[in-house]
């Protein structure tokens, strides 16, 4: 593997770049979390100082936790995100496979049709969507959110996945067909494992806007039982809010779960990327 000698200076330079960029990437997050544990005066006097015995305060967290059932909100966010992702990946990969694998009349047109969704913000369709949900009795259910996010995540998923699926070797699939595998088996057992890196990428891309969305939870599921974490914590981020303890704590509480989630997922993701790639 390491037949080639690497210049130690290069290695050092590379790591210097990485460390510098890590600081740039994490600094703002650290500032928020750090200050959420300080008293209001300390936040403004020394925003960069670590909380010490004098300036340590949990007042913000107390205010935030009083406001609602954060564990319940977290659960709702999890359900919505995970279930939507599952459908986006399943339906998206199936459609992407159809588009990239088969030549049929209207293939390009279908591709374009499915790409329209990434060109218009879905928010513009809010009123119709709400009417559909009212008509089907889905208002204030997590199902409503899952359906909307699945629909809005599909175009991007199909767009990315079909690009990756075009790179899958044709010989492999033909070999499968000669062995008598059905098209479904070829898709699920040959192609899907090969595009795992792309699936992981699409999952991460879609997870972010779903988790962070404020608009559709507000419109479709603002009831106490169906509130998502982002909606639950937005109470503190209005125009007239000066209680920065509460704001920073609310923000931290919204950051931490999604960060943990990503760190957990990222291991799977990378395993998926690497194992899928070496073929």
């Amino acid at each position, binding site marked *: 593997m390491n037949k080639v000698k690497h210049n130690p200076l290069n290695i050092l330079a590379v790591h210097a770049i990485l460390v510098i960029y890590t600081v740039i990437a994490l600094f703002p997050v650290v500032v928020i979390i750090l200050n959420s544990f300080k008293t209001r005066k300390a936040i403004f006097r020394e925003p960069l100082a670590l909380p010490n015995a004098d300036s340590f305060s949990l007042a913000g967290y107390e205010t935030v936790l009083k406001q609602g059932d954060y564990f319940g909100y977290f659960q709702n966010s999890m359900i919505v995100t995970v279930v939507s992702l599952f459908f986006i990946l399943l339906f998206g990969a199936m459609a992407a496979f159809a588009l990239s694998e088969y030549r049929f009349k209207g293939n390009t047109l279908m591709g374009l049709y499915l790409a329209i969704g990434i060109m218009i913000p879905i928010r513009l369709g809010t009123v119709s969507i709400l009417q559909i949900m009212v008509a089907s009795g889905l208002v204030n259910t997590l199902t409503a959110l899952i359906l909307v996010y699945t629909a809005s995540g599909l175009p991007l998923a199909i767009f990315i996945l079909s690009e990756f699926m075009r790179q899958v070797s044709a010989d492999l699939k033909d070999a499968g067909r000669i062995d008598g595998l059905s098209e479904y088996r070829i898709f699920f057992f040959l192609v899907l494992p090969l595009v795992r890196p792309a699936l992981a990428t699409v999952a991460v891309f879609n997870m972010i806007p779903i988790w962070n969305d404020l608009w559709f939870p507000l419109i479709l599921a603002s009831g106490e039982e169906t509130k998502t974490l982002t909606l639950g914590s937005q109470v503190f981020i*209005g*125009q007239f809010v000066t209680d920065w303890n509460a704001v920073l704590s609310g923000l931290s509480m919204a950051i931490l779960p999604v960060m943990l989630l990503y760190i957990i997922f990222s291991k799977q993701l990378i395993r998926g990327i690497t194992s899928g790639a070496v073929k």
Partner: protein
Amino acid sequence: MIIKTLVSALLTTSVLGSFAAAQEVTLTIESWRNDDLTIWQDKLIPAFEAANPGIKVVFAPTAPAQYNSALNAKLEGGTAGDLITCRPFDGSLTLYDAGNLVDLKDLDAMDNFGDVARSGWSTDDGAATFCVPMASVIHGFIYNKEAFEEVGVEVPATVDDFFAVLDAFKADGNYIPLSMGTADQWEAATMGYANIGPNYWKGEEGRNALIAGTTKLTDPEWVAPFAQLARWGQYLGDGYEAQSYPDSQNLFTLGRAAIYPAGSWELSGFNAQADFDMGAFYPPVPNAGDECYISDHVDIAMGLNAASPNAAQAKVFLEWVGSEEFANLYANSLPGFFSLSNFDVKMEDPLAQEIVDWRKGCKSSIRPFHQILSRGTPGLATEYWQTSVNAIRSVQTPEEAAGQLQDALASWYEPQQ
């Protein structure tokens, strides 16, 4: 079409359903006042529920930036709450015209409000009033008493005094003279232009002349406030161009600024956060002995969603919102939001009482552009955010700023063409 039918079918069934189970009804309030959540939960709603068993009330606020858009979507989709918190003038008038709000003129509680209070939520001819007025807010200046003593200055009575005070603070160097920024824009307009302006255009007199088309925005009385704002720029903190509204509030309550151009709604927050004595003064007049005018803006009210299945119970709640009990509770829970009712509301907060007493010595006026003049595009109430900021930053001369407003208005408003 199918959806419309389905929706109405669904609504009908839910109406029937609610009559069948007329035992306990839950009313939902739509509001942009997310800051008031705890006050509603802990004080106002328990008071109502105790007196009205069988009606539960839920206060469900949305962040101010999303309130209008979210409310409109919910109204169209038929999922909005029973009670709608009303913004003044055209914001709510449009809802009434579209059939989303109900005429409430026959509520008994409406008799507790005068014409001025009702004007914010009535049709132009006054035939219908569709929201029960809750509160008005008054503009002026809040100051740090200790800082004033330290530097040895008095509350200013005239504009010249005002700038003398600012100069004293600038020379002293320990305090930022004026705590305001232009990043969020609206403070420059409401706490700047609308705050100091009525002294120049003589309050309602000037405002009505503008609506009638007998004065222009380029006339001296409408340019003068911009000219004063242009002088403010040098007394604001470093980098005020990127200073946000919460920045300004925190600068003042942390004792780093001397004067805060204010709306009275700041009081409850400031009381909780500032650890020094505060005072307040109304906008200084141009010349000693001039009559003073204050901006006393009708700000918030509550109406009934026309599609509410619980209209009867909602009306009970609205009667209560118009009652003396509510007037006292609300004004004292939220010092700085002044009751619009005819009741004699006593406030425990001395500063709030002081501010509301300005009404006795000065003439009240609502913000200049909210009635009628923002009905077209571009609306003045949005346009003057930008011009007020530009005046402060000296990006536009006062005359240019006024000219832009006049052009904007004349582009769609017939009496000004």
